[in-house]
């Protein structure tokens, strides 16, 4: 009980962040990397970038889901230990963006659409691409959500 409380206190301000790109044009991925640089520096909030899903609390997913990336998106989602927060970064990850259309017949045959077609999403960040400030906002929101899920 005491140990649990101690863990929660220790985890409170250290959300570890992973980045996954499943399609799209790479613009949002570069914006996320931009948020890691000294200019925006998400390590101010204790967020550390980790390159393996097994160490990750918050996963930032960029890009639309293509037919080829469905399997590894599902696999990586399963590899993240609970509790986890999934953030859809960019219009492509939210709805499919420029690669799909509201009219189904005008969409690409190789693109499923937003990542919520495959995995559950907690926070959506729209923008093409979103500014690093928006990603920082999403990260703070995700850290709050993570603390709630740990309760």
């Amino acid at each position: 009980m005491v140990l649990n409380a101690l863990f929660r206190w220790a985890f409170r301000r250290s959300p570890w962040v992973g980045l996954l790109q499943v399609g799209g044009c790479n613009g949002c991925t570069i914006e996320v990397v931009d948020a890691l640089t000294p200019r925006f520096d998400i390590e101010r909030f204790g967020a550390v970038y980790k390159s393996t899903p097994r160490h990750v609390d918050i996963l930032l997913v960029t890009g639309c889901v293509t037919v080829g990336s469905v399997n590894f998106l599902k696999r990586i989602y399963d590899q993240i230990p609970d509790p986890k927060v999934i953030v859809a970064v960019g219009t492509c990850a939210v709805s499919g963006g420029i690669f799909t259309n509201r009219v189904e017949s005008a969409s690409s045959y190789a693109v499923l659409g937003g990542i919520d077609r495959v995995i559950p999403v907690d926070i959506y960040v729209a923008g093409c691409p979103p500014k690093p400030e928006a990603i920082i906002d999403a990260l703070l929101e995700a850290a709050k959500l993570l603390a709630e899920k740990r309760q």
Partner: protein
Amino acid sequence: MKLLKEILRALTRPPVTTQYPAKPASLPPSFRGPPDFDDARCIRCFACSSVCPTGACYVQDISDGERTVLIIDYTRCISCGRCVTICPTDALHHTREYSLLASRKTLYTLSSTEVDVRFIRCTECNQPITDVSHIRFIADRLSENLPEEVRDRALEDFKRFSSLCPACRTKLARKLGTSPEKWC
């Protein structure tokens, strides 16, 4: 000596890291946020919905076609600004919104405005053509930009043609003849 200078400069200068959540983000003057719609200026040509590459901006009929709504879906909008460029009356403009977060997709603020469309119907076959203010806008543009010699005749023709649907318009044009001699 060079290193010492660098150290002194680093000590006196403020850090490069932005103070973002405490201070608002600095946006460039040409920043393009998702567009917003101004009903008072709109002439209901709906050019915006036809150029939108992602289908974010669209027109929908609600309650059995009695009312029309212009929707800008911010989950789809990529802020490309094609609707803003094509709008003939500047009814659309970019907002300076940069942080569009939501915990659910339905929580996104759709900019949906009910637009009052008063259709002109074809005098021959009673098909709806377009809105009154759209026709008026075209008539104004014509009377402003046409040379004096042809203006009266052109406006007279426009009056006759603008009350017809495209199919009936073609019929009338065939009947009247569209030879270039008519205009010189």
